[in-house]
């Protein structure tokens, strides 16, 4: 297989820039669909018919019902008046299998820690990358990472999927994964460079992508098999929300990570590398 990826780089840039703009616009314009973890509240899982009847007769307005397979979940906001909550609790007494109550600030605590994890990760990564590859490979890998993250969250957001701490963890995991793909392609490019000193950077990058593309697609398929199974099973079996949210974000993230590691990061390296020659 021999396809000229460098030749289509401007098309790639236009596509990914417009995707970025769309995602950023939607993130700034539409309200985030945040999970109960960010609002605080109560969640009753697998509510029985008897419990549902009781709720329907008392107050329908303060609750959200979510159907998962054959099970029903009741979600109640934190700002529900205390007397109404007491009625609800009476209704649902022993009419559920799992109960969760979450403080209003809890989701943000998790978010804060996740951002901290991300920051530390990126710093260590930069050092790691500059050490193994070169500065411009590091730069294009990190730009690609950011790009992946914004687009995955954007798609998530546009589809109005719920954003929860599990989703955020999923996205952070995908960063590692999309990096995995990028590393393999860069590794290949680096190898080709050292094998043949005369080869032009353009041919080198093209060869590198073409030689790794089979692998990229195959690894993505292997990685997606268990994730698709997890996601599919969470549609039928009530694993609680965590598994569903985690696998959905992994699913979206891995596909985007695979595409960007093939199409974006190597050509970005090419463009940046050209800039280096000009500046010297």
């Amino acid at each position: 297989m021999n396809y000229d990826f460098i030749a289509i780089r401007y098309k790639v840039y236009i596509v990914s820039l417009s995707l970025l703009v769309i995602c950023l616009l939607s993130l700034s314009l539409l309200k985030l669909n945040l999970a109960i973890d960010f609002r605080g509240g109560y969640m009753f899982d697998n509510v029985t018919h008897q419990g549902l009847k009781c709720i329907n007769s008392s107050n329908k307005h303060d609750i959200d019902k979510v159907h998962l397979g054959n099970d029903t979940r009741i979600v109640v906001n934190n700002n529900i008046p205390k007397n109404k909550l007491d009625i609800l609790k009476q209704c649902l007494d022993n009419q559920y299998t799992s109960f969760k109550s979450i403080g209003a600030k809890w989701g943000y605590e998790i978010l804060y820690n996740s951002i901290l994890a991300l920051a530390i990760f990126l710093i260590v990564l930069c050092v790691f990358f500059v050490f193994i590859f070169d500065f411009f490979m590091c730069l294009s890998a990190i730009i690609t990472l950011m790009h992946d993250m914004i687009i995955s969250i954007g798609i998530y957001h546009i589809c109005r999927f719920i954003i929860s701490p599990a989703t955020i963890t999923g996205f952070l995991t995908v960063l590692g994964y999309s990096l995995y793909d990028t590393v393999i392609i860069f590794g290949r490019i680096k190898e080709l460079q050292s094998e043949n000193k005369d080869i032009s950077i353009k041919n080198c990058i093209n060869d590198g992508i073409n030689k790794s593309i089979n692998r990229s697609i195959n690894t993505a398929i292997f990685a997606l098999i268990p994730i698709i199974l997890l996601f599919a099973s969470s549609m039928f079996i009530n694993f609680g929300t965590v598994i569903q949210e985690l696998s959905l974000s992994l699913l979206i993230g891995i596909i985007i990570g695979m595409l960007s590691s093939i199409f974006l990061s190597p050509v970005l390296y090419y463009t940046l590398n050209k800039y280096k020659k000009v500046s010297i």
Partner: protein
Amino acid sequence: MSKEQLKKHITKRQFVTRVLIIVCIFFCLLYSWFLLLNKDHYVKLGTDLKGGMSITLSTQGKTNADAINRAIDILKQRVNSFGVSDTSVYKVGTRNVVIETSNNLSEEDLSAITRSAVLNFRPVYYAYNSIQGKPLDVHNNQAKVYGVNDNEWEDYVNLDCTKQDEKHDNKNIILCDNSVGNKYLLGDIAVRGKDVKSSKANITGMNGATEQWGVSLNFNLRGTRDLRNVTDKLSQTSGMLAIVLDNKVISAPYVNKTINDGNTSISGGFNKKSAQFLSNTLQYGSLPVHFKIETLNKVSPTLSGNQLHHILLVGLLSLVCIAIYGIIKYKICGIISILTLCISILLAYPIFVILSRSIDYTFTLPGFAGVIVAIGIMADSFVVFMERIKDGFSTMEVPKPYLIFDIVWKSIIRTILIADGASILIALSLYIFEVGDLKGFAFNLAFVTIIDIIILCVVTYPLIVLIFTSKRINNNKGLLKYYGIN
């Protein structure tokens, strides 16, 4: 085949055979130790998989690691005093504590367990009852006598009890008791709860048919001295002494005589349970940090049992699907990939059991998801391996298949180390900073990926070397297509 190459080829075969034998012996030893000498063969499950309750507490205000560790010890004692079995209390992140128990605690029990239980005795400088609309203390405005300055007095007058419960001014403190409509201006701590030597819950009297409970206290030397001093001073003016628990005034009796022997009792609004609990808490000590309940998770055992079966089924199914795809794609080498996957999991399991016994590591639902996702990553490194070999065959003139490893092995191990390194890095940073349910996910992902690198070096590599150095393949290159190389 030159003589030198042949010699190298034979030594390589011998080397990897030795590695495989050592790995086999190691596995036999590990499993015979694990199955015969170990009593526990199962990992500990989290509350989401075995049923029970898990509560996440967050500390309020400034605190340090030492205070949190002391608080965890006290929390353990308190939970145990409820007779709750199978409980673990541990720190998560820098400022959160998780209590996990297989029993269910009521909300009342929980708030009792997590309260700070700081008990203090403070002199009442002034008290005003908003219902009667007059001061409680017969001695009008003691505040001036005790040297309360104008600013503090103004704060007291201006504090609206319907909006704010308490206000701290230097050493003095303003507290509202909205149940009876009192607003207190209290002086500095006169006697400290930590000077209580022993305490006991007892019945202090009857209110109709209901028993009135109280807690009798016996102070140590310093407590006795402090109590004598304050009661001596207050008894001269028949002042009030407020008993303050967690910044709530429990009662504020008038003091008529000096207490010399360090024995006193507190009462007011206790029932049997709360009195006994306060008495216990005073003996274990108060919590050095304030806790707030952040999340509470209650799962019934039937649901959790189902979930365990289902997640195991999903894991097995992913393994089977990967096996099918692997065998279609890489033929005989595909079988090796399945073998190595199984070996990785077999190696990981006893280590998980050891971890769960030694550091209380529990397997949660997201933890299982982490292992399942890691199965995909393990299959990936195999794909990297195979695709690189394929690439080597297609781009370079390789006279004999066994020579391929001289060309590609370094590049394979380098790529996999960097790529897996990146995965491990993100999983570890998630593990370190994650405070929620997903810690297990990150830990398992990182852990299984590390196992993957080890297995790749000591099992996958030797097996593949054995295949590609065998006489059959080297004499007939056409056979390579049965090994996924074409």
